[in-house]
């Protein structure tokens, strides 16, 4: 898409950008602006016919090309970029505050210095940023160790709790990246125990240490595409249908559902896909009368058995 509303801000930024970088390469400038070199050439062709009233040669924006480089010598008054808009100031200020306030995610000191400078430069445009807040689970003790292992490219030894099976295991992981998705922090890495790429919820790391061993994740190990969320259906997944009473409507908000059928009066039937059914059994147990497994039948039977054996614990006392 291109139109004046998109092009004008770019051109107004391009003039001072080039002014402060005489002799910059076409490729660098195009990359910094996220446009193709062809688009940049069109932008420059437009710039140098613009200028002060009169529009004689001395009134126009002056640009010299030498080989693959650009030098802008007369900006005709467009010497500085435009002030940050409210949305722009808000995006930067809230993001920096979030980094500063999330324990372990970044060294807070340079973040706070950058924040103070951006706020000062934004002026009054930064005020509405006070009305937006982001709380992330930082995992203050675990995160700095994971960051260090990533920076030094060392293997991490985790004592990790797997929620689905409710069991704790020790795993050596070649760390690949640290993710913060949907409010929680995760480590993605090559799990030597599972011999596969795995995502570890940092809130479930009980202990961790950096081993004196260089990390070497397999080069072709696939990283997860996060654009569709952290958890994605796989072909072998079990399809589960749950009937939810109005009080359990949060389930449809909380878990990614393939389908939600409204039955009226706030009752719903949701369809979920899962690779392991242990967590669905837990979910069904915790929902009690307000959620029922409709399909598959064997899972409904397992939940019934789980409930009976759990009740036995209450009969004793």
């Amino acid at each position, binding site marked *: 898409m291109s139109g*004046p509303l998109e092009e004008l*801000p770019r051109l107004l930024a391009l003039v001072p950008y080039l002014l402060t970088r005489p002799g910059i390469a076409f490729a660098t400038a195009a990359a910094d602006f996220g446009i193709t070199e062809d688009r940049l050439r069109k932008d420059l062709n437009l710039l140098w016919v613009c200028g002060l009233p009169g529009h004689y040669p001395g009134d126009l924006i002056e640009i010299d090309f030498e080989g693959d480089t650009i030098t802008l010598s007369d900006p005709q008054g467009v010497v500085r*970029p435009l002030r940050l808009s409210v949305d722009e100031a808000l995006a930067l200020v809230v993001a920096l505050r979030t980094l500063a306030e999330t324990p372990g995610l970044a060294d807070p000191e340079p973040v706070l210095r950058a924040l103070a400078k951006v706020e000062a430069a934004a002026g009054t445009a930064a005020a509405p940023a006070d009305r937006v*807040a982001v709380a992330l689970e930082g995992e203050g003790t675990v995160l700095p160790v994971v960051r260090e292992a*990533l920076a030094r490219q060392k293997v991490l030894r985790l004592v990790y709790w797997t929620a689905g099976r409710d*069991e704790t295991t020790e795993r050596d992981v070649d760390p690949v990246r640290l993710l913060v998705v949907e409010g929680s922090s995760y480590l993605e890495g090559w799990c030597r125990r599972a011999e596969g790429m795995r995502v570890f919820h940092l809130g479930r790391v009980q202990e961790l240490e950096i081993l004196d061993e260089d990390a070497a994740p397999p080069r072709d190990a696939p990283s997860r595409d*996060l654009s569709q969320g952290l958890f994605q259906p796989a072909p072998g997944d079990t399809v589960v249908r749950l009937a939810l009473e109005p009080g359990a*409507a949060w389930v449809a908000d909380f878990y990614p559902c393939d389908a939600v059928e409204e039955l009226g009066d706030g009752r719903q039937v949701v369809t979920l896909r899962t690779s392991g059914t242990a967590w669905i059994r837990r979910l069904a147990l*915790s929902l009690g009368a307000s959620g029922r497994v409709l399909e598959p039948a064997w899972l409904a039977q397992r939940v019934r058995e789980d409930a009976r054996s759990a*009740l036995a614990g209450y009969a004793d006392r």
Partner: protein
Amino acid sequence: MVAAKKTERLLNLVICLLATRRYLTVQQIREAVPGYGSGEGAAEEEAFRRMFERDKEELRDLGIPLETGSNSGWDDEPGYRIAQRDYQLPEIALEPDEAAALGLAARLWQSAPLAGATGSALLKLRAAGIEPPEGATGLEPRIGATEPAFESCLAGVVQGQVLRFDYRTAGRPAPESRQVEPWGVVSWHGRWYLVAHDLTRQATRVFRLSRITGPVTPEGMTGAVVIPDGSDLRAMVVESAGDTPTTTARVRVRTGSCWELRRTATATAPDGAGWEVVELPYSDHRRFADRVAGYGADAVVLSPDEARLSVVRRLTALAEETATEKTGTEKVATEKTTAEETA
């Protein structure tokens, strides 16, 4: 290329108004800036006026501070100019570690409209001479905002404008219309909330954005919403979730299991072979019962009674549900058939 011509005209207009100290009348602007046409007829004059009105709107939408005023008390026709002081981004220089922090922060927003705003903000900062590094590898904090209502709620908050929307409340059959003064938006545990003063209920309310159905409509004047001093938005969201513990439960857990429950334990003591008793603070016995019941036979609530009974009630409903579940399935099956018949 009509679009390129228009961009050229707007850029010349900005340069012209930045260069002038005097306010320029529309006629002076028409003569100074190419592209407005020079026809003398009434129709051409009218076309120019409309074109200039649109251009003014577009510059203001881009945040360009277009000033209106007169050069002296005798001028009856107001003119326009752009003050460099209001236009220019003030000087800003970042140390390398500050630029790195900014680079990391800039990757936080994953979705519209804040991802786009970050991109255009970075262009301006680059134009001011800052070079944000491409970022430390391997660190990817992201904040999504997939809720359809996010953009309009954020706009209402920033504009300080009353909002109207339909909201689904758990346990209510149909969404209800709400009219609110928005105070702020908060992301907590990966979900967005709107903190607002509900005008119908005359009370502060926290709305989950995913439960807003349909459009969010702004009403009335911008800047009409006044937020009381000292409002802690985040605290209001946390409080509405009822997460501040008020009671402590004693729960018998199997050794090596229930780690997530144990995480919040204030005390742990052995209780026979293979079992421990943990003390767990909580706020709401129903929600607490949800958490414990999920562990099945590995966790047994000893006290207080209300939490214990809540768990037993959940388990009993499931253990004895053979008969009721059947009717549930039948009802769903019937409704599905009906849907297929009508389709």
